[in-house]
């Protein structure tokens, strides 16, 4: 009989303790971010999709070695190149120039193998995270085009 | 401690036929018990048994208090064989990981089930059947587990083309 009443008593006490905790939480400030109205700064290492880096002239640093394409686990990078003739020290040399850098972001797993394998520091992660869409095609990025736009905006 | 006793018990299955030196290197290797370097391989005992010795070997481990870690298969297409690998480990601090292997011909992959000894082998065997098509004779419910119910393909076979 004593156990019966002590269980009722202890049980009620535990319930009141719980209610006390939620009562205190009620008066604490909210911790959420009202997303479309407020945004937070992405951390420096945040991995968005990859992006080409431009050299001083505004041309991509990429030399079309294809390391990123080979390293990619999901095969989401497609490179294209054209050769142009440039004059170096009076001699005419052939040089490969990047003509296409397509990223299929639907397949990308953001592992960072491409950035890690790039010996020329030509790609980096962007801080882009607002990438909602209902169409697949919106995730096929033409990074060369993107770089041009970014350069134009900066200029 | 448990390492030696288990090794002896498993060795007894091969009744005196001590594995010759270099048995490890031979391909496909002969049946027998080999101690492995834990630092490199991650397990201590490696026993390859004939299919009909399997239940005896697993019973030894069961009596010694091992728990079943996993069952998996490997398709050795060049040797036209399939291997079933059973991993066992222990709950106590007398660390001993035991690997039991058995090889079956590729065209007739029949292995006795050990789900009668270890109930937990049930799903592992079903999974191995899914992926390799190895049939576990005596299994109570050998239907696809991870693959769709009507799957008749075995994706981990080396000659599997999607």
């Amino acid at each position, binding site marked *: 009989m004593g156990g019966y009443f002590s269980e*009722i008593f202890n049980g009620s006490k535990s*319930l009141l303790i*719980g*209610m006390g*905790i*939620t*009562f205190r*939480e*009620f*008066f*604490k*400030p*909210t*911790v*959420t971010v*009202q997303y479309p109205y407020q945004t937070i700064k992405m951390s420096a290492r945040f991995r968005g999709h990859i992006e080409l880096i431009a050299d001083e002239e505004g041309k991509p640093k990429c030399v079309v070695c294809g390391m990123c394409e080979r390293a990619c686990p999901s095969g989401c990078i497609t490179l294209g190149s054209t050769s142009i003739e440039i004059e170096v020290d009076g001699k005419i040399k052939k040089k490969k120039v990047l003509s296409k850098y397509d990223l299929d972001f639907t397949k990308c797993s953001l592992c960072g193998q491409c950035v890690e394998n790039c010996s020329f520091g030509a790609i980096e992660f962007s801080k882009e995270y607002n990438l909602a869409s209902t169409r697949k095609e919106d995730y096929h990025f033409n990074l060369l085009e993107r770089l041009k736009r970014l350069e134009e905006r900066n200029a | 401690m448990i390492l030696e006793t288990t090794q002896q018990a498993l060795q007894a299955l091969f009744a005196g036929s001590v594995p010759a030196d270099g048995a490890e290197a031979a391909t496909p290797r002969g049946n027998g018990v080999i101690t492995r370097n834990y630092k490199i391989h991650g397990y201590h005992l490696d026993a390859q048994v004939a299919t009909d010795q399997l239940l005896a070997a697993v019973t030894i481990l069961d009596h010694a208090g091992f728990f079943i870690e996993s069952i998996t298969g490997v398709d050795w297409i060049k040797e036209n064989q399939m291997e079933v690998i059973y991993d066992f480990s222990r709950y106590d601090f007398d660390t001993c990981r035991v690997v039991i292997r058995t090889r079956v011909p590729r065209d007739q992959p029949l292995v006795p089930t050990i789900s009668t000894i270890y109930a937990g082998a049930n799903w592992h065997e079903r999974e191995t059947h899914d992926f390799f098509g190895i049939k576990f004779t005596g299994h109570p419910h050998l239907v696809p587990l991870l693959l769709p119910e009507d799957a008749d393909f075995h994706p981990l076979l080396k000659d599997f083309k999607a």
Partner: protein
Amino acid sequence: MSLTLLNVIVAVVIAIAFAAANAAYLVWAERRGAARIQRRPGPNINGPFGLLQPPLDGIKLMTKQLMIPGGADKILFMVAPVLAMAPAIMSFVTIPFSEGIAAHNMEIGVLMIFAFASMGAMAILFAGWGSRNKYSVMASVRAVSQNVSYEIPMLITAITVVMVNGSMDLKAISTAQAGGFWHWNIFPSLQSPLMPISFIIFFICSLAETNRAPFDLGEAESELVAGFHTEYGSMGFGLFFMGEYANIVIGASLTTILFLGGWDCPFGMFPGVWWFLLKIYILIATFIWIRWTFPRTTIYGLLNLSWKILIPISLFNLLLTAGLLKVF
């Protein structure tokens, strides 16, 4: 005669409006309150403080298609939501909000409210059975056994109060408690020393009767998907939802009248409808607060609580009060 009829019609319209408004804004209050407990803002986009959220939700629910699952019992399926809402509104008719505000005062008010409250169990049973869904049937069976077992201690405590006040008329019960909180029924007196415990029992039972957490076994969303209203969408679901909140208001009102002196001021000054409303909203806030604090009980835990704890204690209390009433 026709005047009384007109009176009743007006009162019913007001009761429906009151119930609907309460249901809508209690949802808002519950969502805001729960959000505060969990340290988020809650609905705050539509209108100031998200106050337009309930009408917009209502519009959304009303414009949705009413689906009847194949093989369901169409009549039961359609009747159930109505049956969940209608008795709750009917109960409002007899509740005295203050001295002069009562649609139709009845001498058997307590009995009538309990009679209507029992119909809620029917609605759940119909909904569960009519849906042709295993989860719904299981949930409705649970909910009915829960309602049945909690009506007993609830009625016993109500009888205790009726005995003390000597009336089943809700207005008379309120009036008998007038003149400060020491006159209220919750305050232990010579005749009924265990009244605070009765109040707690009654409060727990009204939680269970309204299927609120921690006794929301009829919904049990993590086990039975959505319980008895799994198959309901559109306004069918809306009616269940409104019925639930209307029942909460009824439960809080009844608790207030039976134990907290109705419209009486705790200090014996300015009695009026505002005190009544204040009391019921404090009780409702407690309902909400409890819901967002506790996990759900098990079905056997719930029945054990009723049959092993609440019923013996309330019976003991009834006998004690009866004896003391005879003595004093």
